[in-house]
């Protein structure tokens, strides 16, 4: 019966959430915003690139002056440029519309800025002046070097692979940190997106005066587990919706978005780190969700409970203030404190696990602590809900609940 009821609770909670318009409005807002941003970037980049490309054929007619002497006149002519006899007159011609643009190259282009003057043709199209001026200088510099490879090397276009060792074995470096740090990302996303829902989901029974009906029909542990599971499912749905536009952007507009071509085969996955990361995630999730359920059972209204949510959020983000110490000196006192204090432990330990500075002993202690305390807090949350949520209009004292449950 308990398992049947768990399935019923999960089904009810998931279905009713997914049927709500407000859920989809807020959930779809994120991908819509991401989509708009991607579209704007792609549009802007496409416009600039097309202008540069079209410049080769239609050419931008411009004048230029070159105090550096690096600009090759033949290349400049091919780009559509004409050497300006008088810079002031060239600027005046741009102002009057007699000339489309004027580029002023300084004596030392690496130390001073090159100034471009042009007729305003809109936010996106104005980028063509800088692009053409840059391309002209790059092409002239390449021509002076006279060697394609040398030019590439001068521009830093070459790859360096680093192989580092730790305890005699190859260490992953930053590529080894990416995979275990994904657990930290998931933890943040889950807590930020679902925390408030968890806090208010048990309040709903209280605010709707449905607690007595529930407590005589359903084991409170089943109800709370059902709510946690359903929130996790809803969180997965939200994450998929959020990830979709990012995936589309990466797969189809990577060049326009100037995104790096990540070679996943280069990532180093250490099974030990992954197991520790997963356990820290589950333990941390249990502790925080249990805490939020307990707070929901104590507080009479969502408004009062939201104060607790603020404190929990602060505890999640506080370790980030010491992130530089976590990276540079993981044995510093404050880092040790954050590693073992239960509510800052998940974030700090997951960060250190990703960076490879969490020892097996420390991992064991933190995981045991999180699971133990998470279990205690969840049990407490169930007790608070069972003996506290029937107090519909007032905040419940822990002493009262314990007194009732001990008898």
């Amino acid at each position, binding site marked *: 019966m308990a398992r049947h009821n768990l399935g019923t609770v999960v089904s009810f909670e998931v279905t009713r959430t997914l049927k709500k318009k407000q859920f989809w409005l807020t959930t779809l807002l994120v991908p819509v915003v991401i989509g708009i941003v991607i579209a704007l970037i792609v549009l802007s980049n496409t416009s600039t690139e097309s202008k540069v490309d079209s410049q080769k054929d239609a050419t931008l007619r411009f004048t230029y002056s070159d105090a550096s002497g690096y600009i090759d006149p033949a290349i400049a002519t091919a780009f559509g440029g004409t050497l300006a006899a008088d810079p002031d007159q060239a600027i005046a011609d741009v102002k009057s519309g007699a000339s489309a643009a004027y580029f002023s190259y300084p004596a030392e282009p690496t130390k001073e800025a090159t100034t471009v003057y042009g007729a305003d043709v809109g936010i996106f199209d104005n980028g063509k002046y800088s692009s053409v001026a840059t391309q002209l200088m790059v092409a002239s510099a390449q021509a002076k070097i006279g060697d394609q490879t040398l030019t590439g090397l001068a521009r830093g276009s070459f790859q360096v692979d680093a192989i580092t060792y730790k305890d005699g074995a190859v260490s992953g470096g930053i590529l080894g940190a990416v995979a275990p740090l994904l657990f930290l990302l998931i933890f943040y996303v889950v807590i930020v997106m679902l925390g408030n829902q968890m806090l208010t989901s048990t309040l709903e029974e209280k605010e709707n005066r449905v607690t007595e*009906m529930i407590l*005589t*029909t359903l084991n409170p542990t089943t109800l709370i587990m059902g709510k946690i599971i359903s929130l996790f499912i809803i969180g997965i749905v939200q994450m998929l919706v959020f990830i979709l536009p990012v995936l589309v952007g990466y797969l189809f507009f990577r060049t326009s978005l100037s995104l790096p071509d990540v070679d996943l085969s280069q990532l180093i996955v250490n099974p030990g780190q992954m197991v520790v990361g997963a356990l820290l995630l589950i333990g941390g999730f249990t502790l925080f969700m249990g805490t939020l359920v307990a707070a929901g059972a104590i507080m009479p209204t969502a408004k009062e409970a939201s104060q607790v949510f603020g404190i929990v959020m602060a505890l999640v983000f506080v370790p980030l203030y010491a992130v530089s110490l976590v990276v540079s000196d993981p044995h510093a006192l404050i880092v040790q404190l954050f590693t073992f204090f239960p509510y800052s432990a998940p974030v700090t330990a997951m960060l250190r696990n990703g960076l490879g500075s969490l020892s097996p002993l420390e991992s064991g202690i933190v995981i045991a602590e999180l699971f133990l305390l998470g279990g205690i807090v969840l049990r407490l949350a169930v007790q608070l809900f069972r003996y506290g949520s029937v107090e519909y209009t007032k905040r419940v004292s822990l002493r009262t609940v314990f007194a009732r449950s001990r008898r």
Partner: protein
Amino acid sequence: MASSLLSSLDKPDQQAVPRKDSRSETEPLVHISNFRMDFGRTTVIRDLSFDINRGETFGFLGSNGSGKTTTIRALLGIYQPTAGLLHINGKPFSPEDGATLGYLPEERGLYKKESVIDVMTYFGRLKGLSRSNAHSWSLQYLERVALADKAKVRLDKLSGGQQQKVQLGVTIMNDPELLILDEPTKGFDPVNRKLLMDIIEDQKRAGATVLMVTHQMEEVERLCDRIVLLKNGEAEAYGTVEDVQDQYGGTVVRVRYSGEIPDSPHYTVTRRESSYAELTVTGPIDEAVILRELMDAGVTVREFTAGRPSLDDIFVAVYGDQNTGDQNPGDQNAGATAGERNGTAGE
């Protein structure tokens, strides 16, 4: 016809839960003995004992704040008793036994943002019905209580009375062995009150044991086989309605009259209106003696009947000295109707 609605539906999920435990058919369904309940330093129930037999309708009476709701919550495991035994079917209640229980709490409420049919189906599933049975039973019930067109409407769009009908449906949809109704008619108009009483009587005829908390004494007289009166945390009176009536003062004379009713050592005037009075007879005096006394005093008697005191009279006699507005810590929400609390419109 709620029970017939139920019996017409196949409920395979519930077949494992027998309606009655044949091993203990003669034992009371509810057994409460030496129950004590303290909230901090406040003692709400001192020492309460009573049984409810299978198939009977039992009235649990008391003034506001006397501890009725606290007792029910302790019986259902929502509160842990300070001392004493509170058993249903020979053991403390647990939510796993929920399929045999129908509980309409004093604090009414369901998931207000959800549709009527979704909520009813959900609770039906929790009480062991299959989804299709819970759904079809709910539709038939809504038809009966004239809410068929509200099946897909959100609960918070219904009036307080309509919400109560839905909650009653949720209470009885599992064909409960024990039906606990805490002030079931609160918030109902007379028409819907009659409908509610009909449904309760259907349940009773189908064999359900009913524990009813109410302040409507005419309902108690009409429906209840036995009652207990709770006062100062103890049973002030306990037995059949007739037993309790006998216990409280024997004969009451009801008179319609004109004139001035005189004082007499043979009776006490317990109610006096302009042309109606109730006289509680003191001592073994024949009613004819009282009629003679009235006529001798010049009172014109138009109607003269003698009988047992009403439960209303007994209630006033028992609790008349108490401020019935007091509430105990367990009944901290008593008093407000569902509509008042939830801001919903009345019917």
